[in-house]
């Protein structure tokens, strides 16, 4: 059995009794990457030298009898839009192919404080724009369950690396579903925290009012541990919330009796694969058997969410990506005629098609004469979508539905049709617009491909989301299934 199949407490137990070392864990991670990543393509940059140094330092500390951090010795993969001091950070873009950050994101400082070991940087859709990892400027990531299929995105490398057993856990980022959807496609757990719970300082901005960092793990308990390590107010991110951080691990009681569940009819209707719907209904039966009760609810503005999201996220992106001008970092076009030519050609040579498309859409929506019709209208619709959730949460503790309407699709199948691709996010985007937390947990298979169950909670009520997910997981075996990646 792979070391990474062990529970976190068992790994720490073995480390404590010296039957396992951090260096062995680290080598197990690099060995697995060497064995599998030519087929998966999860990694963009490995941190071998520094990870080995970090592992040895942790082993020395352990030998000296020092206290262990919450994530002591665990091999971590980091999505490549989270800046890492001295470790190349590309956002899977040609533009940043040579960018070496001079500082760590706040989540990296927190992972280091919790004593996780950074194994390397994970592939993604360029600047987190996409749902398939086909928009990486370097190479696509493949789904470990079927390497002809996408792993989802944009945190596709993070989901695939965890599913393939290359790392113990990974960090991803979620703007419209970019943690939850790849978690669903790859059969792992992915948590998008409430907007503001985790600092965005050092996360390369895509859509600032939506972006949020979160964990991808093999089980819910690990997600609770990672969240515990990375949550909290950060003076360097003025949008990070100044709230007390509860004990997420203590929340995993297994007790969901009396839990009130709303199931949005809009997430179970047209466009949802019948097999996906079937898996969700089976999961609801599991909740019933544990003493929870569910009923149908309506989130009436769901059908408008995708349109509102693409206008808002693209508008924010067009503004955020203005910083990539070829002056302070990144690539610069050769022999520019003048400063304007330098900007235009550096950006055009550095950005891929999906990034250009969204910059164009956002610039158009914000341009003179169209602002009210598109941007402001979308912001008003966002208010209506948020009210749908506010209203539902007056009656329910959690909202449950599918994470994605279908299992993973084939590489190349949707890349020529942006609108079809955008529709894969129909169940995750409304949640992002409302800013509330949600987790995707494995709930079975459709045609041999993993299906994800989405559990959505009230703002800053990760405790209930994690408790519900953990109780469900404890009654099922889906999360223990591993992809048939033969060596």
């Amino acid at each position, binding site marked *: 059995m792979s070391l990474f199949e062990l529970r976190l407490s068992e790994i720490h137990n073995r480390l404590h009794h010296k039957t396992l070392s951090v260096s062995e864990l680290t080598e197990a991670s690099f060995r697995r990457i060497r064995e599998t990543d030519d087929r998966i393509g999860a990694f963009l940059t490995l941190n071998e030298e520094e990870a080995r140094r970090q592992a040895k330092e942790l082993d020395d500390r352990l030998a000296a009898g020092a206290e262990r951090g919450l994530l002591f010795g665990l091999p971590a993969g980091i999505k490549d839009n989270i800046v890492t001091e001295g470790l190349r950070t590309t956002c899977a873009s040609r533009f940043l192919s040579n960018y070496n950050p001079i500082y760590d994101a706040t989540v990296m400082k927190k992972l280091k404080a919790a004593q996780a070991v950074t194994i390397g940087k994970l592939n993604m859709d360029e600047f987190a724009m996409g749902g398939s990892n086909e928009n990486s400027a370097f190479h696509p990531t493949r789904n470990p369950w079927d390497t002809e299929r996408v792993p989802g995105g944009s945190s596709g490398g993070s989901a695939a690396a965890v599913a393939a057993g290359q790392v113990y856990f990974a960090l991803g980022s979620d703007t419209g579903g970019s943690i939850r959807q790849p978690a669903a496609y790859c059969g792992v757990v992915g948590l998008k925290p409430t907007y503001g719970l985790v600092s965005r300082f050092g996360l390369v901005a895509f859509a600032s009012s939506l972006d949020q960092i979160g964990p991808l793990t093999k089980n819910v308990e690990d997600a609770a541990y990672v969240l515990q390590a990375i949550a909290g107010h950060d003076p360097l991110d003025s949008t990070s919330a100044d709230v007390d951080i509860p004990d997420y691990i203590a929340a995993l009681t297994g007790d969901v009796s009396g839990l009130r569940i709303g199931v949005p009819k809009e997430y179970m209707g047209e466009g949802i694969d019948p097999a996906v719907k079937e898996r969700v209904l089976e999961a609801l039966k599991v909740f019933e058997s544990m003493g929870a009760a569910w009923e149908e609810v309506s989130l009436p503005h769901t059908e408008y969410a995708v349109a509102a999201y693409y206008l808002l996220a693209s508008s924010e992106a067009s503004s955020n990506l203005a910083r990539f001008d070829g*002056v302070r970092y*990144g690539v610069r076009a050769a022999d*520019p*005629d003048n400063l304007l030519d*330098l*900007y235009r050609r550096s950006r055009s040579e550095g950005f891929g098609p999906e990034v250009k498309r969204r910059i*164009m859409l956002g610039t158009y929506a914000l341009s003179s004469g169209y602002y009210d019709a598109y941007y402001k209208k979308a*912001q008003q619709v966002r208010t209506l979508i948020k009210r749908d959730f506010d209203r539902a949460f007056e009656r329910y503790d959690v909202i449950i539905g599918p994470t994605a309407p279908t299992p993973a699709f084939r590489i190349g199948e949707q890349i020529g049709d942006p609108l079809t691709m955008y529709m894969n996010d129909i169940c995750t985007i409304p949640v992002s617009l*409302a800013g509330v937390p949600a987790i995707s947990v494995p709930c079975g298979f459709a045609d041999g491909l993993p299906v994800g169950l989405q559990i959505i909670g009230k703002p800053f009520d990760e405790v209930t989301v994690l408790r519900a997910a953990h109780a469900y997981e404890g009654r099922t075996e889906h999360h223990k299934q591993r992809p048939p990646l033969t060596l």
Partner: protein
Amino acid sequence: MSITVQEVEHVADLARLALSDDEKWQFAGQLSAILKYAEKLNELDTEGVEPTSHVLPLANVMREDEPRPSWPIGQVTANAPEEEDGQFRVPAVLE
């Protein structure tokens, strides 16, 4: 809503992108399709609905104005494509 190639050129200029002719035609088609889809929002009456720019109830976040050391210049310019004497080098702006 249909976007013309001329409009694509105008928006590309605002966004500081130099597009090839192929890209202009492609974006004209794709952006038209996306904006046509976005017209769906007009089915909703949003008269009097406050726009949401942000889900958290945050206004201005203030902090004490305490001096802190800045990054050393050598590190700030470490990733610059062109650097000279601790400054970012760009083509001449003035004739």
